[in-house]
């Protein structure tokens, strides 16, 4: 039991899909079956991993795909050295992975309950794993509504999946783009997420809301969610602090008494509000 906890496993890029400008989804297959089994034994939606290219480093993103697949997916935007290196890798190339790390959404406690997903831009990936996890077990949950917005139509990620969800009768999907971001053939809404969110039905008893996106969107959405009847203990989000180790050692993600990599990344609004200097 004295292995190197910083040693990643080898993955192979199975598919690469450009979602939006400089935003790509990689589907990664485990090079070795025991690594895959170990991963899926522990993986629950909300957890994150460190994706790497030896020589460039590792970068932290959520796992954007649900359990029950034989691969994992991540969606990221070009930001620094590691994401640039990941974007350079092609299908068939190996990359490295460590994880899953962190806590997860309390999905079992939501059985029979309504769920409202609120996402902006590149904030959809952390919720996408939850949405698919729910859809995989659709009958166990109540109503599922998704409000998703981006600055422009081009910035919407998972466009194919959005089309798929729009066509389902058991998912209520509202997509919106910021004013000025629409295209002539845009069929969705025009307006900011918090504005569109106001039109959603009030929370049913036990309903949970999951919010992920730019800080300003989250900040403005919270009062709207309160207005809809969601209590701070029923609103969930994920924190994206900078991390290096992912395993509660390097100190980078420490905020207040919390190590985001261990105690998070999933927090309720109530927990986030107790953190000092939370970015909300």
């Amino acid at each position: 039991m004295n292995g190197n906890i910083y040693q990643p496993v080898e993955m192979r890029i199975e598919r690469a899909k450009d979602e939006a400008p400089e935003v790509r989804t990689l589907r990664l297959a485990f090079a070795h079956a025991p690594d895959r089994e170990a991963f899926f034994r522990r993986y629950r939606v909300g957890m994150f991993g460190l994706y790497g290219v030896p020589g460039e480093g590792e970068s932290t993103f959520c796992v954007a795909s649900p359990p029950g697949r034989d691969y994992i997916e991540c969606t990221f935007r070009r930001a620094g050295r590691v994401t640039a290196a990941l974007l350079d890798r092609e299908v068939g190339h190996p990359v490295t992975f460590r994880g899953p790390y962190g806590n997860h959404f309390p999905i079992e406690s939501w059985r029979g309950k309504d769920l409202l997903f609120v996402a902006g831009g590149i904030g959809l990936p952390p919720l996408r794993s939850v949405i698919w996890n729910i859809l995989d077990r659709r009958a166990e949950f109540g109503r599922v509504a998704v409000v998703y917005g981006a600055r422009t139509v081009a910035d919407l990620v998972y466009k194919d999946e959005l089309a798929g969800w729009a066509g389902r009768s058991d998912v209520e999907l509202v997509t919106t783009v910021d004013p000025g971001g629409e295209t002539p053939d845009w069929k969705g809404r025009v307006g900011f997420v918090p504005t569109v969110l106001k039109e959603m039905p009030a929370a049913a008893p036990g309903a949970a809301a999951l919010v992920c996106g730019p800080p300003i969107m989250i900040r403005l959405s919270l009062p709207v969610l309160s207005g809809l009847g969601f209590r701070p203990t029923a609103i969930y989000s994920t924190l994206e602090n900078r991390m290096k180790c992912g395993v509660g050692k390097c100190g980078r993600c420490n905020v207040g008494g919390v190590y985001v990599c261990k105690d998070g990344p999933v927090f309720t609004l109530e927990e986030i509000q107790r953190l000092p200097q939370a970015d909300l």
Partner: protein
Amino acid sequence: MKSLSADRLQDLAAALSAAGYRVVAPVEADGVVRFAPWSPGAAIRTDAVPVNSLKDVFFPPSEAIGRWRRSGDGFDAIETRPEAPKTAALAARPCDVAALAMLDAVFNWDFRDSFYDARRAATVVAALACSEADEECFCTSVGGRPDAAPGADALLRPADGGRTLIVEPLTDQGRDLAAAASGVLQDGAAAPDAPPEVRRRFDIGRVGAWLAGNFDSPLWKELSLPCLGCAACAYACPACHCFDIQDESGPNGVVRLRNWDACGLGLFTLHASGHNPRPDQASRWRQRVMHKLAYAPERFKVAACTGCGRCGRVCPRGMSLADTAERIAAAAAPAAGPAAGVPA
């Protein structure tokens, strides 16, 4: 009672070296006393607090934690093991030994860090009780004392006015060490010297109470103004343990290194997007103080400060954790008693 003439510490080191230990001790090079590998002939300095701490033995400034060989478009991982030779750390100060509780906790609280653990397991720590304290020392303010080193494997206690060191084994490893050095140890009584007086600078309880409610205090800005944002304090600190992970490549392969890092450096929390949740030195200095005296006690039940005073000794601007804690304790004072000016 086993003891050793104080001027025979080098002989003790030599005996341990002959017994297969790598000896690490305070030795001087170029006018600076550092905790470093001892080599025959080097004087072991017990009169000066080394500029670096015992931490370096277990958690070096840079070490490899991963290796790959390139092959085509891919990489072959090469197993990377810690370098952990059998080591004796001699004459570590009680404050340095006390910090091991913090390091042990963070490197093992969930995932176990095999690099740290291997060296911890391979190292026997023989502490040296202090016979002097300077104005930066404040172990007694954070629950420590200069003449006891819980967590050490053995204690060298000055006696007979500094002429003798009593060797007190505290663990089996310490007894092994004493056995390995039996040739240079003598039997007989010695009178332990009185420990030095280490001034109590602040009430840790009062500081903790203030920290709990003053995250947004304007005092942070004031306290942090002299700070220039380097990592001298953190790297000298026996309990600071933050690190960075960086890859270094060559034509044939890659080494992944873990390098020390510090919350006082502006880039520590800078996101690739350009956003920085700790955008100024006030928030960074607050993080350092909070982490040591509030977050670590809350999470690990141990303060990440043992009062060694190195931060005050190395800071280019003469700042120190003790000064900050003193200021905080003073700020907390009015609230501790009946609030002044408030009608009963």
